[in-house]
């Protein structure tokens, strides 16, 4: 079993989706606990990917293919996890804010969060404040994660937080923000609960916000 777990983990790191899918299937057929596959292969693999990114060994392309490989494995694993009643780390509503069509940062964060066992509700790009509000009301998520790449669309983050306040749901969720032009200072200024400068730090922040 250890060999299969290790093969899946290495295949996630290498971004080899076919090997991940084949070995997740094989591990399940051998009777391996789905939670063990999730924690020791998938999450452990993505954690290493995050570390390689932090260390300057991995860049955006390597992160993306690793995340794709992880997603391929999760598609097979998810029904088994549901059946085994394995709890996720939390639920995150994520989107690029209104007026901004850039989705690379949002996608990376989304994939890394999924790799850390969060449930993701991806609203896509150019998301108006009311759509975030609607999702918070419907999804019962713990976190709203917003991304912006343009300085011109950063104010939409503040507008979205205000919309959450006006709808009376701000206290239901923690709000985290990210994107190239952002900073801790800006995050505090608009009343967000946290800022992450990259996808790996976003995972750490999400875990911290859930634990708070």
């Amino acid at each position, binding site marked *: 079993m250890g060999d299969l777990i290790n093969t899946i983990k290495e295949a996630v790191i290498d*971004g080899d989706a076919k090997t991940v899918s084949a070995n997740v299937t094989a591990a399940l057929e051998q009777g391996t606990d789905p939670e063990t596959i999730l924690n020791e292969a998938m999450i452990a693999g993505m954690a290493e990917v995050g570390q390689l990114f932090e260390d*300057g*060994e*991995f*860049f*955006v*392309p*390597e992160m*993306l*293919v690793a995340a*794709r490989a992880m997603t391929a494995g999760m598609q097979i694993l998810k029904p088994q996890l549901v059946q085994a009643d394995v709890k996720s780390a939390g639920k995150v509503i994520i989107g690029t804010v209104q*007026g901004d*069509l*850039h*989705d*690379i940062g949002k*996608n990376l964060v989304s994939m890394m969060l999924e790799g850390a066992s969060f449930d993701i509700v991806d609203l896509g790009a150019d998301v108006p404040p009311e759509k975030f509000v609607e999702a918070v009301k419907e999804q019962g998520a713990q976190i709203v994660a917003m991304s912006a790449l*343009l*300085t*011109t669309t950063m104010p939409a983050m503040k507008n979205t937080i205000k919309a959450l306040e006006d709808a009376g749901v701000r206290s239901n969720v923690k709000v985290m923000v990210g994107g*190239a*032009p952002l*900073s801790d*200072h800006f995050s505090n200024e608009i009343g967000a609960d946290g800022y992450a400068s990259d996808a790996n730090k976003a995972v750490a922040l999400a875990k911290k916000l859930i634990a708070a």
Partner: protein
Amino acid sequence: MDKNLDNFVRAVRRQSGHTVPAAFIVDSPWLPGYANIDTLDYYLSEDTWLKINLDLRERFPTATWIPGFWWEYGMAIEASAYGSRLIFHHDQPPSVEPLSTDLQFWKEHIKAPNPETDGLMPLVLRQMERMDQRLEPMGLGQHFASARGMLTVTSWFMGVSTLMESLITETETITLILEIVTDSTIRWLDAQLARMREPLGILLLDDLVGMISKRQYLKTIDPLFRKIWDHYDGMIKIYHNDTPCEHLFPVLADTGFNVFNFSHMTDIAAAQKLMGDQVLLMGNVAPRDLGAFGTPEEVYQAAWNCLEKVDGKGMILSFGGGVSPNTPAENIDAMCKAADNWNNKTK
């Protein structure tokens, strides 16, 4: 040629007698807002466009504007020539949606655009011709051609995730596509330069290069990058990439561009150490946190720190990126004042 541009050129060519220029990449995300007009009016009214650009020169008499008079539509010009959908806004340049994010689609359908007929390119070329007729009697002109680089352009017509993943999983296919885009970029730049009475060089903008590993860069991008720079041998070549990408600085240093507008997140002295003295560094005061939202005193101090760190050598004073939307005039004044004071001190 105006005296500020002449000084900039002499600085790039390392000719004697130049002072440290204060130069700014100024484009359509900033200019219409600065002039308090609708972005669409900025594009549609030649009179307004010209007045704003001329007023800029009068308002900041010691600044150099790069690339100068620039018909700039954000990412839309090149992306439109490949068929992308454009979405126009009243308060920012047009945004772009990929036509297809399927690599196989592009493998089968990519067609090298003709700058004379495709997308917004012919419109921009005509705008350049028409403006030149008005600039010439004033003794002014357009001197630098501008284009987005091959990774940025490709990311806009096929989506950035598809592009980035393909660099690893479909190297052969994406390389063929990037070769077509590179050749098309050269044709687009050539078409612009052909409209200029006194062409001096090119400005290439490609942030995505900073998001890949050194290994990936050397394997796929470096030959294409060099192809562009080599094509403009003898001209001034300015490269803008404001992602933090120190890992590439040593390999970028000898690719062939002369001026590098880089991120404020890299210390200018560290950048000079990594790149050597063959590239002139253009930077690198924080464009948003200080340029747009700092005080003039903070901008002045940050600019002065940049000058002191490299003793004003091998550098052009600027922001670490373009001029951000909402940057007040006073903060550009502060930067120009820092350059003036430095130049007077070291006379």
